[in-house]
């Protein structure tokens, strides 16, 4: 067993190389999602100001009903899809090279996932798709799961399946379609609702885990996973409380297991209850764990609006309320959670192997930086749109600026949803054990019920009135 000295060794870093602190600030996936997302928005605006649009390259399939019709559409737009693939490939390869991944593996993997995403995007625009429940996010996830678990893919292809990078880029682009006034208006409610659910869920998991005899740190890692932002929260809290090396995989397995079930279950239940899309999105935002998983569920549910199923609202309302709850209400507080739990950990749980000081700076170090891009994108487009009449907006601004950005956002989300499926290998997930499973499941139940009460009964009127661009 390792020794248990608390004292800081004064000789530990006399001539060590400069720590890559500044580099890590600039070269995380989060920052690249910000630069890329805002770059796309600025480019779109420059084209718009010049009387043009990026819509040529921001191609997306239109509705089709027969194969000859689809063939005509593809032969007409094939070159645009190739141009989009080339643009994504160049930009993303630059990103992965900078953050230290292998471009050689990324390029073929990305071409593969782009082709699959195109097929899914096209299938989702078949005019009979909703009749067969072919919601693109669910199809992407299911197809990915089948390929990775039944057929199997070489592991090196994972280089192109960057769930988090794609979803963060998509969220920054999503910011461009949300009025900043909406964030100001609904933000406090999102924070209040999400905070209530997060704290209650965390306590439910933590104390159940403790009652079952689990270590405090593992209990905290599980609690954060269920209460804040899934796997990202678990890994952040693991570092903050100095968890055992084997603790994060337990949380990862449980979060992935429940998150995948909820991607299918939450839209299904919301549909059965005929929740308006804004309300359904808020509930999903409160109850799903990971950003990508929740967006898959929210986009899937939003896609059911206006299809004669008794679901009111628009597709964008589901995404807007989901994002407000999840990103503004939950994600941005991870640094605070980390700080508080780190303080409790070193003060009361007394891990003795290492130096036990807690640094306030982690509130910023762990802050999910892509949220900054999301907010800046919202402010930018709100300023751009400001001063246009509704008629001008619908005739000029929306088709020239907002719609192409929305199209690129959908591509980013589709790449992410497909990547979830392609990287989920059930046999590789750690065996969590029955006690962690019980503790986490108790939190899941509390979370879903409390989330429903707050999203539907207490704040339902709020979420059903969410307005998007």
């Amino acid at each position: 067993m390792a020794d248990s000295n608390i004292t800081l060794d004064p000789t530990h870093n006399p001539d060590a190389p400069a720590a890559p602190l500044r580099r890590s600030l600039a070269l995380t996936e989060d920052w690249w999602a910000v630069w890329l997302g805002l770059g796309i928005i600025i480019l779109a605006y420059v084209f718009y100001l010049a009387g043009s649009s990026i819509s040529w390259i921001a191609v997306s399939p239109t509705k089709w009903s027969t194969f000859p019709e689809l063939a005509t559409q593809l032969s007409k737009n094939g070159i645009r899809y190739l141009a989009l693939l080339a643009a994504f490939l160049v930009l993303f390869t630059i990103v992965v090279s900078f953050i230290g991944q292998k471009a050689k593996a990324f390029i073929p993997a990305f071409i593969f996932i782009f082709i699959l995403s195109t097929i899914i995007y096209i299938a989702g625009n078949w005019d009979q798709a909703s009749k067969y429940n072919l919601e693109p996010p669910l199809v992407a996830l299911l197809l990915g799961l089948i390929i990775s678990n039944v057929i199997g893919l070489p592991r090196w292809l994972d280089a192109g399946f960057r769930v988090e990078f794609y979803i963060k880029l998509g969220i920054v682009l999503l910011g461009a379609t949300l009025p900043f006034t909406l964030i100001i208006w609904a933000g406090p409610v999102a924070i209040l609702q999400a905070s209530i659910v997060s704290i209650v869920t965390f306590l439910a998991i933590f104390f159940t885990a403790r009652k079952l005899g689990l270590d405090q740190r593992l209990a905290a890692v599980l609690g954060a996973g269920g209460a804040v932002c899934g796997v990202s929260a678990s890994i952040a809290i693991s570092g903050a409380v100095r968890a055992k090396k084997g603790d994060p995989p337990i949380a990862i397995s449980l979060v992935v297991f429940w998150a995948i079930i909820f991607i299918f279950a939450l839209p299904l239940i919301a549909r059965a209850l005929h929740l308006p899309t804004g309300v359904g999105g808020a509930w999903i935002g409160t109850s799903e764990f990971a950003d990508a998983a929740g967006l898959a569920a929210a986009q899937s549910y939003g896609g059911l609006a206006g299809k004669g199923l008794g679901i009111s609202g628009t597709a964008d309302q589901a995404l807007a309320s989901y994002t407000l709850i999840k990103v503004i209400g939950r994600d941005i507080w991870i640094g605070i959670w980390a700080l508080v739990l780190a303080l409790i950990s070193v003060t009361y749980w007394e891990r003795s192997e290492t130096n036990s000081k807690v640094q306030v700076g982690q509130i910023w170090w762990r802050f999910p930086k892509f949220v900054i891009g999301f907010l800046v994108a919202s402010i930018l487009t709100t300023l751009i749109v400001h001063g246009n009449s509704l008629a001008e907006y619908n005739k000029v601004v929306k088709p020239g600026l907002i719609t192409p950005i929305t199209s690129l956002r959908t591509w980013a989300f589709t790449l992410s949803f497909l990547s979830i499926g392609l990287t989920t290998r059930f046999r590789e997930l750690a065996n969590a054990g029955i006690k962690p499973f019980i503790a986490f499941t108790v939190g899941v139940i509390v979370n879903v019920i409390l989330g429903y009460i707050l999203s539907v009964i207490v704040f339902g009127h709020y979420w059903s009135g969410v307005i998007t661009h």
Partner: protein
Amino acid sequence: MKILNSLQRGNAEPACEKCAHFHNDPAHIEEVYRGLTTMSSGFASVRDRDGICNYHQLYLSARDSCQRFTSRMPA
């Protein structure tokens, strides 16, 4: 308050990050923690510069330190 005594303001010099027992390369973390990339990432901000200490078998901050520090720098 007792709990506030543990606070350290400012950015202390990283210690574990320069230790031979400590590994925080994002690709390595993704390799060790299979499933991490499914709904998160080794390259995400929330992970800061945390890593695995193979001596103590802990997942901890690069800013931690202990008396078992072994420099990676050649002597």
